[in-house]
């Protein structure tokens, strides 16, 4: 009896001693990822990693394929997530108090200012990366079958990203924030430009309703701040995370990164030189068992051109994540996030500028609030969403500008895109626009004819010409997309660097009249 008792105690003791090892083993059941088999189970046995396929095509690992832009966007989001949660410890979403809490974050919270700078820079990096990621997907024609729906998800992610960034803009409750949001809220109200012209505002005031719902009041105050806060820290991040999950899962389901049909031939040599991974030869090749009808995906695509995701893909992903972190930290150390004077509803900022990525639109808004704030963005948005459903061609998928026209078309489009936007801006700055020529012109005329719509018309005309010339939708899409990208860049640069008080044109801020 005694003996049995002591042996039971011994066993408990032994279990206790071995428990760390067993905890590890139960968590990572596959053991060390030293063979292809354990590498595979490392990936699909892990809830966080199993969104990846266990093997990754070498084409997808090439830097030039994606330039890591999707991972950069994700990494930037993760950074804003972490820093944002840290900032929430101190931030109080109430007018004036909010500004005080920003000051506290700056001055007395250890590393508070650093964290806020990182948050702000990561948000900007995210916006840039998301836009470039979209451009990459477009220029490699990766949105084509079967990835149409994932393009739409990405399209939603772009909107959500911009909305996240914009809602974050109000939270410091400084002059910059207050007037950017005042302008934003009034853009939401700008359908009144149309309803006023039609004389139906009193029956159908969609603009006023949008503004009231955005602000929760008829002025930018406590109600607006709590709404923007809720959107910024809760609603939009949730939407973003859900869309991201679908986006990633879809990449896997759609067969990974898009690649051209001859990708295997191109990367064939590379595969031989880069294999084996560590020291061991693979014991055997294998396919994932799948309860699907027909051929398994791996069949016919030569497993020799894939590498185990663990570790090849994860080195790449982790590397890009760290690179993004490095960029955000470096920017945060170099440049402080701005915090202007406390919001003053009686004294507008002069010039009052929205976040930089909206300054291109603000250029058009400075002619017509509706066209710049709602009309053209909506048009561009709808156009972007329709791309994969209009272009159902086959050539050039997965290759940079691989379709009809190629790089030549791209360069021509760049020239026309830049030329037209610079030209129209210069014209409007130099000669003015309709109201300067005919002071009594009705607003509806300006809503319809302004530099924004004229530019859009030029781009559309050029794109139609390209479609006819190449006999290809894809070529027209490349022309239009490139032109709009150029227009976006030019208008944004003008809005950011060349607009001063009263939205007048100045070559440098040092020419601004002193306030």
């Amino acid at each position: 009896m005694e003996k049995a008792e002591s042996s039971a105690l011994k066993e408990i003791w032994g279990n206790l001693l071995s428990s760390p090892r067993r905890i590890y083993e139960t968590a990572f059941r596959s053991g060390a990822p030293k063979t292809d088999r354990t590498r595979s189970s490392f990936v699909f046995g892990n809830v966080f990693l199993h969104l990846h396929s266990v093997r990754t095509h070498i084409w997808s690992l090439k830097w030039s394929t994606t330039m890591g832009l999707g991972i950069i966007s994700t990494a930037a989001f993760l950074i804003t997530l972490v820093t944002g949660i840290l900032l929430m410890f101190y931030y109080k979403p109430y007018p004036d108090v909010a500004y005080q809490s920003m000051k506290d974050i700056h001055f007395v919270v250890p590393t508070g200012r650093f964290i806020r700078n990182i948050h702000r820079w990561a948000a900007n990096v995210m916006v840039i990366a998301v836009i470039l990621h979209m451009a990459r997907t477009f220029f490699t024609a990766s949105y084509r079958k079967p990835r149409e729906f994932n393009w739409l998800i990405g399209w939603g992610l772009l909107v959500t990203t911009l909305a996240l960034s914009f809602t974050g803009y109000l939270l410091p409750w400084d002059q910059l924030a207050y007037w950017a949001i005042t302008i934003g809220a009034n853009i939401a109200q700008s359908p009144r430009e149309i309803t006023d012209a039609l004389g139906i505002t009193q029956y159908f005031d969609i603009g006023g309703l949008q503004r009231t719902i955005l602000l929760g009041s008829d002025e930018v105050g406590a109600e607006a701040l709590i709404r923007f806060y809720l959107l910024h820290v809760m609603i939009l991040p949730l939407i973003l995370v859900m869309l991201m999950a679908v986006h990633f899962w879809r990449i896997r389901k759609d067969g990974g990164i898009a690649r051209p049909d001859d990708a295997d031939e191109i990367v064939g040599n590379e595969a031989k030189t880069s294999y084996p991974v560590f020291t061991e030869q693979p014991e055997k090749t294998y396919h994932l068992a799948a309860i699907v009808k027909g051929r398994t995906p791996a069949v016919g695509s030569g497993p020799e051109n894939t590498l185990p995701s663990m570790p090849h893909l994860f080195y790449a992903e982790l590397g890009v994540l760290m690179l993004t972190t490095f960029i955000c930290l470096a920017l945060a150390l170099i440049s402080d996030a701005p915090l202007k004077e406390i919001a003053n509803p009686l004294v507008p900022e002069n010039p009052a500028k929205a976040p930089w990525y909206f300054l291109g639109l603000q250029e058009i808004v400075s002619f017509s609030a509706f066209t710049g704030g709602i009309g053209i963005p909506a048009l561009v948005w709808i156009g972007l969403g329709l791309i994969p459903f209009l272009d159902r061609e086959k050539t050039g998928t997965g290759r940079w500008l691989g379709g009809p026209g190629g790089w030549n078309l791209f360069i021509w489009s760049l020239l026309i895109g830049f030329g037209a936007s610079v030209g129209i801006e210069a014209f409007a700055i130099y000669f003015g626009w309709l109201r300067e020529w005919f002071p009594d012109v009705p607003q509806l005329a300006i809503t319809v004819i302004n530099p924004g719509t004229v530019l859009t018309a030029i781009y559309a005309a050029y794109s139609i010409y390209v479609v006819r010339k190449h006999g290809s939708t894809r070529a027209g899409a490349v022309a239009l997309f490139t032109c709009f990208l150029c227009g976006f860049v030019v208008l944004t640069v003008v809005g950011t660097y060349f607009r001063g008080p009263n939205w007048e044109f100045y070559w440098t801020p040092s020419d601004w009249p002193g306030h």
Partner: protein
Amino acid sequence: MKKNKYLLLISSLGVFALLVYAAVSENFFKEWHSIQAGAKTSEGQLDVRLRQIINPSLGTTDRCVTCHVGMAPGETVVSDLKVAAPHPPVVHSPTEMGCTTCHSGQGLATEKLDAHGDVEFWPEPMLPAKYAYASCGTCHVPLEVPNSARLELARKTFERLDCYACHRLDGRGGTLRPSPATGMEGPDLSHTGIKGFDANWYPAHLAKKEADTSGLWANSFGEVDDNERALLDQFLGLQMGAPSLIRAKAEYNSVGCTGCHVTGNFGGETGVDLSRVGEKDPARLDYSAIEGAHTYPNWIAQHFRLPLSTVQGSQMPDLALSDRQIDLLTMYVLSLRRRSVPDIWLPKDRVRAMRFGAREFASDGETIYKAICSSCHGASGSGMRYPGLPPYPSITNREFLELASDDFIAATIRGGRPGRPMLAWGDRQNGFTAEELASVVAYIRALGGGIAPIPDTRPPRWAAGDAKAGNRLYLANCAGCHGALAEGGEGPALNNPGLLTAATDTFLFETIARGRSGTVMKGFRTPSPTRRAMTDREIESVVTYLRSLGANGKRPGG
């Protein structure tokens, strides 16, 4: 795929390096760290940490004491580090009231430039140290402040009578006699304006002098005459620990500002109400004409120097003030604030001014005249002429003072001239009392050289001339200056009911006959190169005509 490993290696090392840099600069390179490390207390090394003073009632959180660590609660810094020096003694303890309450600036900040407000995105830098006492005006209203000449006289009297020998005032004096052992014997007089003082101090001092046998009192205390005692009482009533603010307000009460501007419960209506002008939003000021720093004190000073070019359309005349005056007035304007503080914090002087209409200027004739009348009638009473504004009449010339009875002058001040810049200074809220009116009248007479009125034995209304003839004569001789309808122009308005009610016929008659010396109004009884002399009969007709303006209010000849 080695390049991905290199990517991870290099970027991770980079991130690590940046984090180390951030941690080091966060923990070791802060300005206040080195300041606190250099400041020693009597017990040795100072504890290096952030310090602050929070006053929830005033809504201030002031971290200034992180660098100015000698002013932090409970710290006694002994090293002679200037930034860490203790605060000079003031009425309210900075450890209770905080720093920005008086000095403004950015209390939440912990870095010098930010805290002092010398950064782009802080609306206004700290108040210059010389104006710090202006912040007393946030809560306090100095009451019954005399004009600056009288204040100076009172201060000199206090000094001349050697009150400093035994008494301490604003950190000065009280160190010599009579008791070298304790340094001083008399009480500290720094706050007598707030805490009050013994009204019978003089008999009490005399009694002590008689009772003292040591001879100290006999040596140090002498007779004080009534005039000096009045000055000293007034002086003691003003001691609230902010001598520079009192000086500033005395200057304000010397250049006639109250004649046009309201501050608190009293003032003229020509100019804007200045009651809260010290809290103007600096973001809304137009700095386009301001040379130098774009700060509110600088704006105010510039405005005194060149009113019209600072504020477009301003009617404020250029008062030709000296730099010293501008400095004092700027300080006073900065003090005109009313921070919303809990009622319990409101000091007695503010309550007296707000609820009981207490005077912000002393009630002696000289101060009233200087504070209210002097901007229009001139410091000497001989009238003023500002560009673009009608001339203001002389009130200290011999003829006026001889012809105008005390009652006439008092009635004019009390009722004013309706519709003219001369307001009804008595018939209004908190208007002048009879005693105040009498003292102003007496001061005006003194200003004119002490001229007494000539007794008038005739009835107030005796003129019985020909109004039509009077009208003709008026148009020929008077209308050029007084206007065709007697509505005033270069000369004063004569159709004014205020004038016509208060003036006797003798007053009008003699004024026309004798003129006003020192002004363009000449006596019409004596001939001039351009016209013959008027007869008494003609003058009487003019008086009759003028009377007809008041009688029916109709236009003459109509």
